[in-house]
Structures are given as C-alpha cells and as structure tokens.
C-alpha cells in the first residue's frame, strides 16, 4: 500500500476540520454545557446562573424518583436488549438454514428498520388497546385482565413487544451475516462426524458468532439506555404512576416540561457515565470470550 505524506503540518488538520467542527458543535459542546449546568442553578430564560457545587447531584441522588427511574432504566436495559437479541438470534438461525422461506424472510425481517420508533409506538398502543385492540376479547371474558393504561406490568409487556419488533432488524442482519460467513466445510465436517443441528449450534455456530454477538450486545445495550424515548413518549409518557419513567424520558420531562435545566443536565451527566460504565464493563468482561480467529 502506498502511504501519503503531508509536507505541511496544517494540511491534515485543515482537511479534518469540517468533521471536527461539526463534532465539536453538536457533540462535545452540548456535553460541556451539560457539565456546566450540572454544577450551576440555571434560570430557564437565562437571567442568571449561580455555581452550586455538588448540590444538584445531592438533590438528584437523594430523590426517590430518580432511583426508581434509574432502576426502571436498568431493568429495561437488561430485558429489552436481552429479549430483542434473543429473538433476532433465533430468527437469524432459522433464516440461515436452507429453508424454502429463508430468502423471503431475510428480506421481510428488515422492514421494521424503516419505521420510526414513534410510529411503532402509536401502532402498538392501538393494537394493544384494552377496549379496541386484539386483546379486547379477553377483557370481555374477564374484565380487567389486560389494561396497560393502569397496570404497570401490562405496560412493560406492551413496551417490550414494541421494542422487540423495532429492534430485531438491526441485530438480525448482523447475526445473519455472521452466520453466513461460517464456512460450510465446518458444518459438513461436523455433520459427517455425527453432530446434529443442536450440537453444531453449540460447538460451531455460537462460538464462531461471538464477534457479532458482542457487537450486537454492546450496541443494543447502549441503545436501550438512550433509544427508548420514542416508544415511551408515544406509548406511556412515563406512566402509569411513573412506572415507565426511564431516565431518558425523565430528563426530557424535567428539562423541557418543567424548566429544570440544572436537574436535567445533572441526570444527563449521570446517564452518560452509566452508558460509559456499562460499555466499558462489557469490553472488560465480555470481549475476553470473543474469538476473532476462525
């Protein structure tokens, strides 16, 4: 490969400048501002802000509402990413087999990716409406057996259903690509040695799929922490009784609906730290198990 040599020291910076400026303006500057506001009490209309040290953090960390929101966020992280990855893995394994419908399925399973999560939320609220949706007949038989508007457990189920549906395509395509890249010889050799499909799944496919699984887990977990906003805003608005008030939604509500810029910024900083921690831990503990060599 031929290497380019820049004689001027400024030229590489100049070439990178547009990207760096955009990154700074839309990524680093807001983060810096969030840190600034987290240590200040900020008047909504910008009349003045005063330095208050760690007071905002003490207030946020001392409120029961924050902890229940953080708990719900972690629960959602585990269950939402777990359920969507598992579903995508099962579908990818099925689509990888030489079944008749595989080519169609590989195409069809990607479609939900084209639908915005807000639209998915609106549609699922209607599908799961306790009086008009597909489960309404159950309510006619046993009144009150399904009501995601008042029953927190039902609300969570509704949220997961919508999330799995919207999260499948991304994991599906990465996992399927990983499966397809596994050489056929390994399957054939395994089969000749008498390994059935389950055995080959355990000993050949899953171990060789770990790089893709790792990518999917890291991205899905990070996304479940910050990407649930569209679903929550359209489906539950944090209800009933704050049961689905995940941190991303609480930050929006506190900052934009309640003009609590300092509190919202403080929680943003905490959420950022959480995402960084979770991702870091995954690299430390999970990546060890990944086999990149084939």
């Amino acid at each position, binding site marked *: 490969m031929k290497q380019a040599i820049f004689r001027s020291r400024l030229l590489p910076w100049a070439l990178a400048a547009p990207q760096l400026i955009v990154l700074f303006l839309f990524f680093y500057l807001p983060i810096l501002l969030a840190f600034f506001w987290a240590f200040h009490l900020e008047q909504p209309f910008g009349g003045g802000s005063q330095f208050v040290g760690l007071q905002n953090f003490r207030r946020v960390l001392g409120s029961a509402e924050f902890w229940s929101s953080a708990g719900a966020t972690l629960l959602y992280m585990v269950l939402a990413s777990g359920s969507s990855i598992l579903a995508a893995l099962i579908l990818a394994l099925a689509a990888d087999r030489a079944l008749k419908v595989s080519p169609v399925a590989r195409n069809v399973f990607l479609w939900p990716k084209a639908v915005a999560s807000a639209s998915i939320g609106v549609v699922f609220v209607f599908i799961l*409406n306790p009086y008009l949706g597909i489960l309404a007949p159950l309510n006619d038989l046993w009144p009150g057996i399904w009501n995601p508007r008042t029953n927190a457990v039902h609300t969570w189920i509704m949220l997961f259903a919508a999330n799995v549906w919207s999260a499948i395509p991304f994991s599906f395509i990465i996992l399927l690509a990983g499966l397809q890249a596994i050489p056929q010889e390994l399957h054939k050799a395994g089969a000749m040695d008498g390994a059935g499909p389950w055995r080959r799944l355990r000993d050949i496919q899953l171990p060789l799929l770990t790089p893709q699984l790792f990518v999917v887990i890291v991205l899905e977990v990070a996304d479940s922490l910050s990407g649930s906003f569209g679903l929550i805003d359209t489906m539950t608005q944090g209800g009933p009784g704050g049961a689905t008030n995940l941190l991303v939604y609480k930050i929006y509500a506190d900052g*934009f609906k309640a003009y609590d810029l300092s509190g919202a910024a403080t929680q943003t900083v905490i959420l950022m730290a959480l995402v960084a921690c979770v991702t870091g831990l995954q690299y430390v503990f999970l990546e060890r198990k990944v086999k990149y060599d084939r």
Partner: protein
Amino acid sequence: MLKTTALSALALSAAAAHAADIDFWYGNTGTGEAAIQAACAAFNEAQDDHRVTCIGQGGYETGMQKAIAAYRSGQHPALIQFFDAGTLDLMLSGAVMPVAEFAPDADWDGYITGARSYYETSQGALYSQPYNGSTLIFYGNRALLAKAGIEALPQSWEGVAEAARALKAAGVDCPFVTDGHPWRVLEQFAARHGLPVATRNNGYGGLDAEYVFNQGPVAQHLQNLADWRDDGLVKLDADTAAGNYATAFNTGECAMMEGSTGSYGAAHAALGDKVEIAMAPIYDGYARHNTLIGGASIWVMKGHSEADYDAARAFLDFLRQDEQQIEFTRATGYVPVTESALAALQASPEAASLEFATAGVGVDSLNQPGNPDSRGIRLGFYVQFRDIFMEETQKAFTGGQSMQAALDNAAACGNALLRRFEQTYQGVALP
C-alpha cells in the same frame, strides 16, 4: 402639555407606520387556533400601520419551550401567549414586562375578578393581558341522568355521589368521569371552597410558600374520589373505553364530568341539547368562592424596538375590544374576560343562543366572591408539580399506595421544588 404629548405620540406613530411587523406566538390548536388566526387576519385587515404574524406552536408547553430557546438566542417574538401554570416562572424570568406598565392607558380594571387576580402582581397590577379564558364547570348528559330519574344537575358533592349511585343502579356504567388533573381536582376545588393549596395565599405572599393541600378538606375530597372509584361511581381516563374523560362524556359513555368551559363546543357538537351545564359542585356547608381562570394570557417580551411595541399595543387594544371577545367566545367556548364585553354580550339578542351557553355559567363562576386563597396559584415550577401530583395520585387510584401517602409525597416533592425555585431566583423580588 397634553397637546404636545399627543402630537409627539402622533409623530411617533406616523414614523412607525409600516415599519412594524411583529410576531405573536400562540399554543392553541383546533378551533382555538382557527379563532386566533381569524383575529389576526381581522387586525391586519382593519388597519395599515402594523402587521402581526400569528404563529402556532402546537401547544402551550411546546410554545414555552420554544420561547425559552428563542429568548436565550434573541429570536423571540414581541407577543406570546402562555398558559396559567407558567405564570410565576414568567413573572420572575426577566424576559417579560408588565402589561399594565406597557400600556398604561388601557382599562385594566375592567377585567372580571377571576381573570384579573390570576395574572396580577401581589400589589394588583396586571402582568399579562388575559386572552382565552376558561374555567371549570359541571357537565351532565340529560338523557343518561333521566334514566336514573335525575331532573337537575346536583350542586353539591353529596348530591353528585347520590346521583352517581342512582345512575349505577339504573345501569349507567360510568356515572362520573375525571382525569384527575390537578387543575380540576385540586386547584379549582380548593379555590371554590376558599381553601389554600399552599401557604402564603398560594404563594402571592412570597416565594417561601409551602404546600398544604395534603390535609383537611382538599385531602378528604381526593380520598372520596378514590373511594368512589372503588365503588364504581367515578371513572378515570384509563377506566373508560374512550381513554379520555371528555371523549368518554361526549360519546355518551359517562353521565357527568367536571370540565373546562372550553370543552363545551365539542360536547355540544357530539350530544346536542342533551348537554347540561352548571357551576362545579361544592360540599355542603361551604360558601361558594370564585373558580380560577384557565386558558392563557398574552405576555409582552422584552428586547424589541419601540416601533414593534406600538404594533403590539395596537394588537392588544384590538383583542380587548368587545366585538373581538364576543366573536372569540362564539368560535371557541372560551368566556369573555372583561365586564364590558360580558355586558355587550348579554345585551345582544344572541345571548341566549347555545354558542354562548358557557359564557353565563362560566363568568358567574369566575365572579363569585373571592378570598385571598382563591386569587390564583403563584407557585414556582408549578408545571412540574402538576406532573408529580398526577403521578402520585395515579399510584393511589390504581392501588399502589394510599391516597394520603400519595398527597404527602406530592407535597414533599412540591416543597422541594419550591425551595429550589426560591434558590434559583435568589434576590429577585416577587412582583
């Protein structure tokens, strides 16, 4: 002296002619938006000096969010409509100027009591111009009530409970519906019973107010609502097939509701003359006080040129006219907000027509005798408090905690908000 001032004013306005194009931001959608756009068009039609461009923001809260962002970057409009709960946040924001100082010649004393007191300073000077005013009234569905042999809408809560039992016995599944929003079940309830939501006359006396609704008759009423819901007499949004209290009433699912005068248009369109309205019920043994004005008012934002402000004054004058208010009432169901507009409406042959049905009951309710606790709500971060109140009481209604615990939690969180508000605006005097 007077002559020269008049002359210089004339010269000023002549100089300003054609120079001033101002923006007015509002939050209403639907019929309210159409009526506001009609008023803007009428103003632009009526004179050549100024032009107002009226821009819908898609909601009160969105409007406030955009105004905050716009003000911080210097792109804000001269006039903006804000809703009731944001009153104190705006008064202390430093971004607005008191309308009574902005246009000292207008007849600010002509506003009806309930409309004035909500938007005036503790000293009694109006800070914003009341615009689309509504208040809480009581709705009944004549046909459903007749099923249970009820002739007239009950005027007391005891009567409502009794009527609800009769309705349930007569096979009406949803006797009374509410969404449990604090504007309906807390603020309007406390005001018309003359009871405080918070100390210091709901904050009119200073930023050091504390919530006290979690004790006494207000707490008892919310406990009653929860008990009545357990008995199947009261339904919440989530309990109805429609999923929304007003829709549930309009579709004939529910027989009675507490709602804004602004809901009348839709109710009448859906149910016709089956709709009955009256003042909201009070408990026996209480003297009736005024209800609070809901809806929104128009605020003048700082940082514009004198020419812009001339246009703003002209537009505010225009909206205050009796004919404009009556037209707005006709189109929306909001109530007239000045005594003269009300008198003009009552004197007109149209007064009895159904379009104006809420004006009588609504203004009557707003004009009941007041006390220091029925002036309004002057509490910081109040929009956030409303969300907390909803969340906590929802938990109580669905059985997660007792109503008393919910109210105690809401009061404690609310007090923390008030203290933080006090600290955020340290050194700013309450106007």
